[in-house]
């Protein structure tokens, strides 16, 4: 038993890793083999074979915590006393709550939209050019950087120093402003534009995801469609508008949805760059602050539930897409 739990040498760790993968493969293989072997298996056995392990993990790891969060949102800070809707009342009557909600909406609209449009246009532009893989690698680069690293990177873009003799700018943007003779700006301090500057960071990180997925989708457009359109005299921008975009609609929906949900949950951009100060906070950040800084689990839970609620429109949109594609099929 000890061997499986404590690995302290490189060989042991690697062996344990291989063992884990093999164990997993073995178990899944056995389940599927069993399902496949049985003659005239009922449908639910097959479905169980394909979905069972996944559902077990999800129930334990996500559904149960989510339900207990919902329950916790009706209890006080230690979860010991039932307080009804008090936590929600606190959330909604909080002075700066409107700002927080507005910011969250701004994030969840702007980030997916700009990221997707950018990723799409860029993927289209570099498609089949000579420097394609390099160009894509460069935009992908931010995805490979941890949040800690990204925080440092953007500090050296937004950092403010006064325009005084003997004082150098260390933020790139302010250096550019000074070069063209404009006074340096407090990018992260002045609301509401500071939220936009934070959003830029998120877009910078996520664009690689959008670009990669959309680029692959563009490449999957059958040549005959493109060819047919070209024979009809369609070219350039029109090709993009009427052939490329409609052809990759499913991929666009996927990208927008994924980025939107990630954006809703992400708080580390805000947390590392402004700590939620200066009117930049978002719901996810408030949730983290309440639950893990102030140890007010009740209020934190209420904010988490608010996040669930905010995602409903996104889910509804996807359900509609699902229906549409079912109809087509």
């Amino acid at each position, binding site marked *: 038993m000890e061997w499986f739990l404590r690995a302290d040498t490189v060989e042991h760790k690697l062996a344990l890793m291989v063992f884990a993968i093999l164990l997993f493969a073995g178990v899944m293989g056995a389940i599927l083999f069993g399902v496949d072997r049985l003659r005239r298996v009922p449908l639910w056995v097959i479905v169980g074979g394909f979905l069972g392990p996944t559902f077990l993990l999800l129930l334990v790891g996500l559904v149960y915590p989510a339900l207990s969060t919902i329950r916790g949102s009706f209890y006080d800070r*230690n979860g010991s006393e039932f307080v009804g809707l008090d936590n929600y009342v606190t959330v909604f009557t909080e002075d700066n709550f409107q700002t927080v909600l507005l910011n969250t909406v701004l994030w969840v609209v702007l980030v997916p939209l700009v990221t997707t449009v950018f990723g799409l246009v860029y993927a289209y532009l570099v498609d089949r050019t000579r420097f394609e893989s390099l160009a894509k690698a460069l935009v992908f680069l931010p995805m490979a950087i941890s949040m800690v690293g990204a925080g440092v990177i953007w500090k050296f873009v937004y950092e*403010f*120093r*006064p325009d*005084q003799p*003997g*004082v150098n700018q260390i933020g790139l943007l302010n250096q550019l402003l000074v070069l063209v003779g404009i006074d340096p700006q*407090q990018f*992260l*301090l002045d609301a509401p534009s500071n939220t936009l500057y934070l959003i830029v960071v998120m877009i910078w990180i996520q664009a690689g995801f959008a670009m990669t997925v959309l680029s692959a989708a563009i490449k999957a457009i059958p040549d005959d469609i493109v060819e047919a359109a070209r024979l009809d005299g369609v070219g350039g921008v029109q090709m993009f508008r009427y052939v490329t975009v409609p052809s990759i609609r499913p991929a666009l929906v996927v990208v927008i949805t994924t980025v939107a949900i990630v954006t809703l949950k992400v708080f580390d951009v805000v*947390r*590392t*760059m*402004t*700590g*939620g*100060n*200066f009117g930049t906070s978002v719901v996810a950040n408030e949730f983290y*602050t309440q639950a*893990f*800084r*102030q*140890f*007010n689990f009740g209020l934190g839970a209420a904010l988490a539930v608010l996040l669930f609620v905010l995602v409903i429109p996104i889910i509804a949109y996807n359900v509609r897409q699902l229906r549409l594609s079912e109809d087509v099929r």
Partner: protein
Amino acid sequence: MNVRARGFRSATLGGGLVAAMVLAGCGANDSGGSTGGSGGDTADAADLSIDCAPYEEFGDLEGETVSVYTSIVDPEDQPQIDSYVPFEECTGVDVQYEGSREFEAQLVVRIQSGNAPDIAFIPQPGLLQTLVGTGAVSPAPEQVEANVDEYWDESWKGYGSVDGTFYAAPLGANAKSFVWYSPSAFEDAGYEVPETWDDMIALSDEIAATGAKPWCAGIGSGEATGWPATDWLEDVVLRTAGPDVYDQWVNHEIPFNDPQIVEALNTVGDILRNPEYVNGGLGEVQSIASTEFGDAGLPILDGSCWMHRQASFYQANWPEGTEVGPDGDVFAFPLPPIGDAGAPPVLGGGEFTTAFNDDPATQAFQTYLSSPEWANIKAQVSGPGWVSANTGLDPENLVSPIDQLAAELFQDPEAVFRFDGSDLMPGEIGTGELWTQLTEWIANDKPSQAVLTDVENAWPTS
């Protein structure tokens, strides 16, 4: 179908990446003398030994382990680990150290999940109180209590107690009431180190008259932005209203926006919100809000700022090669008292050794950490930037002059000591609303009265 016939092409490694790895691998240490930063002369813990007798009464501990969880990370973690060696040699206990910057949140998660460490070093008495409330904390054994009674000022014991029960012995400490300046620059300009508040203001005016900005400050600290401003406020409350009012204010026995506190905040404002005084080398008043506290004192080095109020631990922020000392590039003087002269009050902070079980090995280790032997060994293996309020600590063992100065302040029976108030207040105030409000006070010029009233309104009712 030949779909499956796709083969892997060999991976192409970017040449630049390989080069970077090679470079990183064979980097030479080109650091020069290191008085600032983390270097410094330190003893080797293996050469130090202690009297093992005090730990024998805990029985045979050979082979036991004690896990320690702290917020102290690289590079300050190594001296901690080194300082445990004599104890480990005495008892055969293996001490497992873990430091994390997400310490507070993680500690709570672990306790709630039944995965508490044996010992944690808790930097806020307020958090200690919360944890005691969950029933997870074990009271300190009598040996620890005896050590604390003997070697610490009684105010410290109070900070480690909850409702009359003593739980946690103080460990390290830091003195916050310091003003950093450059002795060499002061000498060249003919300025004297001020000994009263009035002198300090007069000096500030004198410097401002030359067109320079005397003060620099920064309260930026990521998610904790605002805390340096709370230290300013507390330091001045301690000076204008006195320690008794300070205690009442921290314990919320007087309203948070009591007129005496408003007056103190205005006194802080006379410096921090005075465009004539700030923010040397960093910008206008507003820039205080966005400047990282760690960078805020650095303009002193290039002469664009003269004074910077920050704790003794700020010495770690001076770049490699900066000489810290009474005749060096930078040094600090105690923030002077206001009004009647006397010993300047000391505002400070520190960690408390908190145990989550009463195993003999845990208790033996607690006892060791509360002993003067440990404090002196820790002082010998530490670089600059560590001090304890343990009166059994010989200041001579400390490496840096600023640490020695801090130790002397802690050991001065005349000096009033108070713990950083924001660490004593309920979390939603001390590490929340107060930070936010003081940040607005700087960033948006929000009036002092309004700031304090908003904090008062946010004080938890229960």
